């Protein structure tokens, strides 16, 4: 533990006149779970998009395991070991659950199928492996997306609102799965509105407001931080 996995330095991104991310710097270390919170429109998803290459940053640097990744296309960044899920589910609806995982890999197909089956069992979708992803329930699609991210065995996993719309039973399984990943030495960075989830899971929380990082610290400290309360509830 302790080695920086992701270093963001002065990241800036605007859309037209709106500055979505304004000079954010933060560092994530290996084997820990980080949270990213902030009011709607505070730049959380844009920050994720800049890390994964889906948006091109205007300024700043992003280093993954010491290598600059800002400016690389998304598929290169994914292959280096950063996986993500989306706030609005993006499974491949007309591919089966199993195929959704298989497309991620190349090389030995038998091995890929074995791994996909294991991951589907891990998120308890093995019975539904031949079902079209579009026919799965919302919660199941969320789990499928999570399993799909794990196909590449990424070092860093970005989860955009993993708890939203997932029932309690599924959620507890998902949270256990996230902790299991952490115990394997992976780093998890998640955006979440459910404060119970954030407080129960994350070791360190970053708070964004209007594209700026206004606080960073353990959950207990963050909850009591005046600026955070102000950002959420107003003065």
């Amino acid at each position, binding site marked *: 533990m302790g080695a920086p996995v992701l270093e963001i330095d002065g990241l800036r991104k605007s859309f037209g006149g709106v500055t979505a991310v304004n000079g954010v710097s933060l560092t994530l270390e290996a084997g820990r779970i980080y949270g990213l919170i902030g009011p709607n429109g505070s730049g959380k998803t844009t920050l994720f998009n800049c890390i*994964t*290459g*889906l948006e091109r940053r205007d300024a700043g640097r992003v280093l993954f395991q010491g290598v600059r990744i800002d400016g690389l*296309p*998304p*598929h290169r960044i*994914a*292959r280096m070991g950063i*996986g*993500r899920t*989306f706030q609005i589910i*993006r*499974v*491949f*609806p*007309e*591919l089966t659950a199993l*195929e959704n995982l*298989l*497309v*991620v*890999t*190349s090389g030995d*197909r038998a091995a*890929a199928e074995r791994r996909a089956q294991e991951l589907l069992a891990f998120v308890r979708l093995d019975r539904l492996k*031949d079902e*079209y992803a579009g026919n799965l329930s919302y919660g199941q699609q969320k789990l499928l997306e999570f399993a*799909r*991210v794990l*196909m*590449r065995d990424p070092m860093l996993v970005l989860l955009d609102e993993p708890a939203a719309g997932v029932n309690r039973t599924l959620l507890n399984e998902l949270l256990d799965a996230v902790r299991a990943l952490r115990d394997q030495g992976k780093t998890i960075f998640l955006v979440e509105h459910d404060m119970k989830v954030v407080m129960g899971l994350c070791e360190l929380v970053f708070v964004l407001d209007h594209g700026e990082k206004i606080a960073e610290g353990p959950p207990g400290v963050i909850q009591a931080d005046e600026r955070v309360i102000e950002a959420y509830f107003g003065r």
Partner: protein
Amino acid sequence: MKRAALLLLAALGLALTVYPLYGTGYGVRAMLQLFMWVALAGSWNLISGLTGYVSFGHVAFFGVGAYTGAILIVRAGWPWPAAAVAGGLAGILLALAIGWPCLRLKGPYFAIAMLGLNEVLRALVSYFEGLTGGGSGLSLPTLDATFPIYYAMGGLAAAVTGVTYLVLTSRFGLRLMTIREDEVAAEAMGIDTFRHKLLAFVLSAVAPGIAGALAARDQGYIEPISVFPLATTITMIVMVLFGGKGTVWGPVLGAVALFVAQEAVWARYPYVHPLLFGAIIVAVVLLMPRGVLGLLQLRYRLPRAI
């Protein structure tokens, strides 16, 4: 099940192989046309049915193949089989040159760019009269090669269908479908979507190039309007949409169904033909956007190999 399907395919192949020995002249020519449509529809399916990038100018590859083949035969005295191979190569080169910039365009912009490409090529061919004969066309030396061209076109149709089968049952094919399903998610999962699109595009340009050269040899005369018609692209699209995009046998089914309908109706009621065609387009889009096989596949969970 699989064995029965293979036996059926073998029987069909055998029947089509011996057909020219027993069929009428009209019958052989009609089958040759049908083979061409199977090859064209199957090719369009490879790029547009799988990736969702609608190529509205796919006939451009056919036209370029036709002119490449015809020019090599007329001006350089090439034998037609070599000219057909050159037609396929011309298709590949054009696909690379056009795909490189245009496949970075999303959805509708790509469709429009392809439509424009076809018009540009038609104008270019008309302009370079010295080489292409311009608007007055290009006549090929007379040669009765209907039988060998029948087999060449039949082989081409079989090859396109075989390649589609291989692609669709591979992870490469599934990855092409992820582009259709959600290109952003595909990129974020580490799929190099541009490279996949370009490969599929090049693959989809080979058979139309060869078919163009074969058709030029078969017809003995080509002109810009006859080898770059938008209607040919539309026909490919309707065939695939009717049969089922993204399936192996959908383009074949669509080609057979529409070609038979066309021959049967066109011969008797030439004015009803465009009307019927339009009606089919509207009906397919409204009632079964996945086409016959796509619908069956989704409803009965048929394997990708269908």
